[in-house]
Structure formats: structure tokens, C-alpha cells
């Protein structure tokens, strides 16, 4: 097929081609670098509020790179500069504490740069985290255990110093024949008064009452507990719990066949269960005293048969 173009057509086409090339080159010259984005961090410590006495919030930079540079700084105090081949950012504890305390009520910046495999540094948008004006409680108490089902070997109640990474055991089950322990509660967040429930093979299921470093064993079985603000009463549930399993989704589930509430009087070492909180036809559980101690809140539900658990997830 012969294709014959008019000379003017060729001229116009050439002009258009040149013009388009010119526009393209101009666009290339004027294209601004893409704006920096936020870095991907794990855990995602972006836009959070930091207590001024919290331990270093270490993280991993989830960006691909050959080298990593991190700078933590604030309006006051000395910045912390960290660099290395690893994306793991482990912040030294003392400079971190100094930086936080210097910026109480203000903010700190986390500036991250990553050296790409091609040898170019890429700077991410700075992460800004506020520093709270008030300090956090110094310790957290918790039960630590593996993802358990039926059997367990080691578990314990531990306290963690939130200003460092130090963890110390409060009570480990290796001390009483690898029994079970949990259900610990403090009187108004005070470490002086604490109740803890344990289950043992040989010594029953007592409650431990800790008051000013004195431990008393109370031969009363209790489950979920709540201290009265006065410290003289302890509301507790007595449950009849059993574990069962699902064939789909989350496997573990617990069935509460019977549950009543009782009030333990610390002074007289007695338990009372008024009908209002221990009805035979209902399950009363999860007690919680009102902050002023005038009311006791709890959950109440109709009692179900053993086979009814198959109906629930």
C-alpha cells in the first residue's frame, strides 16, 4: 500500500513532534521530587502520647535499605542520633529519659533516613509524638503465661518497671507445686494492698491478702475480685468454670455453670452472700465497686444448662 502525505501535513507533524518533545523535556526539568512520606514502623509509634517516665520505645523500621539513620529530638534537650545497618532501633535508656523529661508537655520528633540499595539517602517525614505532662504509674503487674489450653507448667504474676525493661516475679507457680494463679487486684492502684488467688494441688485454693508487705492466707476460694475503697471489704465471685473447644475459629471457650458473688470482710475474716448478689437462678459475676464505695456493680445473667454452650460463640 502506498502512503503519500501532503508536504504541509509532514511539516505540521514534525512541528507537533518537536513541540511535544519540548513540553516533555520542560516537564522533566520542572518535576519536583515526590513529598516525603511517613516511615513504616513496627510497632507503629506515630502520633502517640508518651508518658515522660516511660522506658525507651524501641521499634523496627519496616523499610528496605542498606543503612538506617534515626534522630530523636525535641525543642529542648540533647538529640539522640542512631545509625547502623540494622532496621532495629534500640534507644539508649538514659539519653531517652533525659530527652523526655526535657520536653514534658511538648513533643519529640523522630526523623528517619534510609540509604537505598542504589546508594541514595531517602529522608522520611518526621514522626511527631507528644510528651504528656504527667507521669505514669511506675509499675505494671500482670500474669505471664504461654497461650495455654488445658495444661500448664510455668506461669507467674510479674511486675514490670515501666521506666526500664526490668521484670521481677511477684509470685511464680514453681513456688507452690506448679499450681494456677491469677485474679490479682489492688486497692485503688496502691501496691500496699493486694489480693491474689491461687489454686494448689495440696493446699486448696486459698486467697492471699497482702497488706504492707505482710502476706496472709485466707482459706476462701474467690474468682473475680474488687476492693471496696475503704479496704475493709472485698467483693468476689465464686464461679464454676469449665473449658470447652470450638472446631472453627478461636478454639478456646469457657462455660460458667454457676456463679455467685460474696463480700469478704477483711476484719472478721468472714464471707457473706446476700440473696441480692447470689440468686440461685442467676449468674452474678465481675463485681466492681463504685469509686465512692456506695454501690457494687456486677454482671447478672440467667443460668444456662451445660448443653446450651453449643449455641454460643
Amino acid at each position: 500500500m502506498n502512503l503519500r502525505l501532503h508536504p504541509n501535513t509532514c511539516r505540521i507533524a514534525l512541528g507537533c513532534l518537536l513541540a511535544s518533545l519540548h513540553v516533555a523535556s520542560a516537564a522533566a526539568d520542572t518535576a519536583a521530587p515526590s513529598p516525603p512520606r511517613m516511615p513504616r514502623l513496627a510497632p507503629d509509634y506515630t502520633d502517640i502520647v508518651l508518658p515522660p517516665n516511660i522506658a525507651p520505645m524501641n521499634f523496627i523500621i519496616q523499610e528496605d535499605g542498606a543503612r538506617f539513620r534515626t534522630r530523636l529530638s525535641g525543642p529542648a534537650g540533647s538529640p539522640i542520633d542512631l545509625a547502623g545497618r540494622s532496621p532495629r532501633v534500640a534507644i539508649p535508656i538514659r539519653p531517652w529519659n533525659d530527652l523526655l523529661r526535657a520536653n514534658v508537655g511538648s513533643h519529640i520528633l523522630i526523623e528517619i533516613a534510609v540509604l537505598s540499595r542504589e546508594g541514595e539517602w531517602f529522608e522520611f517525614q518526621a514522626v511527631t509524638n507528644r510528651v504528656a505532662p504527667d507521669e505514669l504509674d511506675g509499675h505494671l503487674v500482670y500474669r505471664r503465661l504461654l497461650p495455654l489450653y488445658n495444661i500448664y507448667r510455668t506461669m507467674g504474676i510479674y511486675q514490670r518497671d515501666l521506666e526500664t525493661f526490668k521484670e521481677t516475679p511477684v509470685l511464680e507457680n514453681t513456688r507452690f507445686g506448679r499450681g494456677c494463679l491469677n485474679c490479682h487486684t489492688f486497692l485503688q492502684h496502691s501496691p500496699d494492698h493486694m489480693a491474689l488467688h491461687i489454686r494448689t494441688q495440696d493446699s486448696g485454693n486459698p486467697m492471699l491478702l497482702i497488706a504492707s508487705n505482710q502476706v496472709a492466707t485466707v482459706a476462701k476460694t474467690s474468682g473475680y475480685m474488687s476492693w471496696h475503697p475503704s479496704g475493709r471489704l472485698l467483693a468476689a465471685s465464686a464461679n464454676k468454670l469449665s473449658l470447652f473447644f470450638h472446631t472453627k475459629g478461636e478454639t478456646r471457650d469457657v462455660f460458667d455453670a454457676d456463679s455467685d458473688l460474696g463480700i469478704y470482710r477483711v476484719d472478721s475474716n468472714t464471707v457473706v452472700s446476700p440473696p441480692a448478689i447470689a440468686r440461685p437462678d442467676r449468674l452474678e459475676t465481675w463485681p466492681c465497686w463504685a469509686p465512692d464505695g456506695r454501690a457494687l456493680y456486677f454482671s447478672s445473667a440467667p443460668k444456662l444448662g451445660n448443653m446450651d454452650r453449643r449455641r454460643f460463640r
Partner: protein
Amino acid sequence: MGRRKQQQTPDSATAAKQTPPPHPAEALASEASHPTLPTPPHKTSWLPVALLFLAAWLYIELRIDPPLRYYHAGPVFFLNSDFLADHLDRPGGLVEYAAAWLAQTDCRAMLGAFVTASLSALVWGAAALLLKPAGRCHSWLPFVPALLLLALAGRYDAPLHAIAFGLLLALCGAVAWQVWRPVPSGLRWGSFWLAVAALFYVAGPIPSLLFVLLGTLWETALAMKPSLDSDSSCFQAAQHAPRIRNVIRTVREKDQPVPQTERPPALSLPAQPRSGRFTSPVVCGLAVAVIAGGILVFPEMSLATVFTPWGTGLSLVVCALLHVCLPIALGLTVAGIGAPVARGTAASSGERRRRMPHPTRWVWRLAGLAASVALLAASFDWDRKPLIRIAWEAQQSRWERVLEAARSLRRMPDPSAQLAINQALYHTGRLNQDLFAFPQRKGAPLLPSMRQGMAVCVPLSNTLLELGQISLAEHYAHEALENIGQRPHLLWQLARINVLQDRPRAARVFLNRLRLVPFHREKAVRRLEALAADPTLGSEDDIARVRPFLVTRDYADSEIPTEFLLRQLLQSNRRNRMAFEYLMAHYLLNGQSEPLLQTLGALDQHGIWETPRHVEEAMIAHLASKESNQTEIAGRRVSPDTIRRYGEFLAHLDKDSARVADLPERLAAGFGDTFWFYQRFGMTFGAIRPTHTTGRQ
């Protein structure tokens, strides 16, 4: 000992033969006042040593099979600082750490065998060094602890590496104590107590106690026989070495007795007052107080925690022997009890050997070897090995090998082995073909629960995962994790389960843990990379194979019956062939002919064109019970061979019905692998004759 290996000329040897042996007390006194000429140690012949090492290596690799130890009782080990830190806060933690690290080599048969053989050889060498300066002893005596270590290796559940390490440290400490003994008594006692404290921290109470015992024995021996000191002091030996060499060379060249005047001057030991003789042993013995103090400092340490790793029964006995044999050997050697008969006071052991007739020498050697082999055979755990092998091969998905190991069973397998055998039968296409060719017991469920023991958790989780009961598989995997610790196969299993549960982040947790285990890093990293590329791992065979069969409906209970689980799987996916075959096997094991025969119609749907042998056996038994002449049910005809065998079975049953006592034994020979035998006697151990086997249809 070197002192006694004195060169003798034939004349002097003859004279020595004629001279009656001196009274032990006189000999001791004579030795104490006139130390004789030290001679260079007897030149060790390396060939027998190398051969024995090779034999031990081969024995461990081929008979014990280190991967079985690794799978069954290998300690957990992670290559990170946290794991090390966990071992630093208790006595014996460092040895435990080192032993756990070495035990990882058991993952590879040859390497693990080499490490264990090397540990045994080191214990042998250290025992020889310990006994050498104590006096003359039989050459086999240092071999005893090494032999006991090999015996312990054959018990499978004992912490071999930790015990060997502790023993070695105690021995090395004792040998070092023999060599390095500072003269100021204060420094000597201080250093001994410090060594005990250090050993207590590094190796725990037992090795430190052994060290104290050996040290005290040695000090007692020195108090009784001060001449021993002259032998043990290295610096003294070194001081005289050139001169001794010259003397020996001269004697050899001239073939003449060593002139008394050319002997080195007697080593002048400071005379010890009688009252102070037992000061050192007593002070060394008091080092037990250091250990007792250490035990008080660490309240979690108790007799139970110290001795629990030794196990029970024969393992406990071997461990105890291992720790008491060395003090006994040292005591006997020092006392000269049971020492080889000296043919003259100056006869060297080499010379005595040369004098012994060649055949007699070999008879003794062969007898010793036979005794060692007998000890190893007697202490070997013959019953446990096939059970561990079944579990290990099932874990590796080597199904034919599982069945091979099952054939070597000597007793009824436990439910965990039973699970693995049944799984292997399914994978080789023989579940309902050869189910009764392997041990089965009526009443034992096809899918057991923890009521049958915690050991079922791992194989049960494997089976449930393959069947598609993913949540229950997770349940049992976690029970096993709590019970036996973070074993590599459990971490891998939990990673797979979490992928199938669509929880890739949780899967990463387990894989990241697995990455810290030696020899498993590469596998974990590969899977982590695959997980990063595709969170569903759709291209991984072990995941993709299971995913279509995952259960789709929920059911909740504390214990779910086997039949219900299998039917639920078939309701989720009716093409789940494993669930179908397991359901048939469940009916066979329970002798439920009616529901079994109702499944016949579904055989075609699963591509099972030939009726499985046991199903045919159930069919003919069912028809016979109905007094029917038919041989066909639901379009499935019983094969003539099965009909013939059933006739034979009934005939034998009629013929031998009078002799009820040994009826099962007699019928087992020909019919032990049949449904009829199992149904009649409630159990079977398979047939003695070869079974009828066919491949997967």
C-alpha cells in the same frame, strides 16, 4: 605410676621374680623414703584407641541413631542472648546451655554420633589422667565411665550431654588439682574452695560434689602416701626430664641396670607431722559446705530438681554408677586393691604385656570387648527405640519407614505410636487394607484424647491438621508446646496452623523463633520469605493440600467424638478422602458393621474401585451373621480369596474351640491380620505370615 614403669634388664627381672613381694606397709615406707627413678610414660598405641573410637562412633550412629535422641528428648536451644541469659541465673546453667548447644548436633546422625563419641573419649582420657598418678591400675578401669556414657546414650531419655559435660568438668578439675597444688596451705585450700564454688555455678551440685570427693580422696591418698606427690608435680617431672632421658638412653644403649648412684636425688618432701596429715583432706571435704551454701542461696534447687534429669529405672542406675565409679576407681587405685599382679616391683606394664603369651592377651581383650558389648546390649532401650522411630519418621512424613519400624515393635504400641501408624497406613493407601496387620486394641479410639496420655498431643495434632480439623490441631499443638517445650517440629506445626487460620503475623512469631534453632534456620527463613510474598502460602504443598478440606462448621464441646469429627469434615467437603477412610477405619475398629456397610456407596466417589480387604472381611462376616448366601452388598462383591479365608478361619475356630487357652496364639499365625480375628479376640498384633497388601487405588 611412671616411677613404677622402670626399665629392667632381664637379670633384674629374674631377680625380681624370685624376690617375694614386700609387705604393703614396707613398700609404702620404702617408696616414701626412696622414690625410684621416674621413666617416660609408656608409649600409647593409638591404633586400638582409634579403633575403639570408631566403634563407638559407629555404634552411636547406627544403633542409637542420634536424630531419635534429638526428637525424643533433645533439649531446646535458641541461638540468642536471651536464651543464654536464662541460663546464667542458676547453678549448672552454663553446662546446661553448652550441653543443649552440643545436643543440637544430634539433628545430623553422623555429626551427633561424632560429638557423643568424642565426649566419651574425652571422659576416658580424663579418667586415665586422673588414675595415672594414683598408682598402678588395670588399663580398662578408665574405660568404665566412657562405657557407661555409651550405655546412657542408649537409654534415649537421659540428658547425656549435660551429664557428660558435668563429669568431664569434674574430672578435669580433679586432674588439674593433682597437677597444680600451691605450697602455702592457705592458698591451696582457698583455691580448692574457689574451684568448688566455680564448678558449682558452672556445672551444678553433682559435678562439684564429685570434684570435692575426688579432691578429698587425692588429699587422703597424699596423706597416706606422700610419695605420690613427687609423681604428680609436673614441675618436678619437668625438672628431671632431661636427666631421666639421658639415663634411660644410656641404659638402653648399654643394656645394663641403672646404677643406683646415677639415679636422681630423692625429692625431699617436707616432713609432715602426724597430726597435720589429715588437715588437707578434712579441709577439702569441708568444701561440701560451699555446695550446701549454694543450694541454700538458690531455694528453687532441691534434691528432686537435681536428680530428676537422671530419669528412673535403669537410666537412674547408670547415671548413679557413672558418678560413683570414678571415686571408687581412684580409691582402689590408690589403695592398690585389684591392681594388676606385679611381677617384680620394677616391671613396667609394657614389659608385662610383652611377657604375657600372645593368645592370652587377645583372649583377655576379646573378653573385655564382649563384656562391653553385653553391657551395651543389656542397657539398650530396645522397646523404646521403635516407638521413637515411628514418631520421628512420621514427623518427617516417611511413611514406609514408619511401617517398617512398626513391624519391629515388641509390645503393644502406645496411642501416640498408634496414631502415627494409622497415618502411615493411610498415606501408603493401606488403612483399610492392612489396619489389622499392625497392632490394634479394641476400645482404643482412632483419634484419642489427652485421657490416653500427653504423648498423643503431637501426632494427634498432625493427624487433625491433615484431616482439616484445624482448630483442634491448634489446641493439641499448644498442649504439646506447654508439655515438651518449644521443639522445632512444634514451632513449624504452629506456624502452619496459623497460616491456615489466616493469621500470618502469628505464624511469623513461630517462624522467627524457629529461625533461632540451629539446623532449622534456613527452612524457617525460606518460609518467612514465602509468607512475605503470599500470606496464604498458596504455593506451598503442605498448606495447599490441607486448605480445601478445612472444616467449615462450628461445633463446641469439651470432648468431641471421633465419628462426629469425621462426619463434620465430610459435610464440609465430601471429597475429603482421608476423613472418609478414617471413618471406615473407625467403624472397623469399633466393629460397627452396619454403618460401615452404609459407606460402601461412597467408595466410588473417592475413587476406591477395589473394595478394601478389611471392608470385604466385615462384609462377609456381616452376611454370615445374617445367614445369607449372598456375597454382594451395594454392588460390591466379596472376593473369592476373602470368602476362602473366612471359611478357613471358621474351620480353625471350630477345630480348636476345645483349646481356648492358646486359641489366639494359634489363630494369629494365619489370621492375625484379619478383621475376624480382631473382632473375635478384641485385639491383634498383626499376622506372623506376610499380609495381603495392595497399593493405593
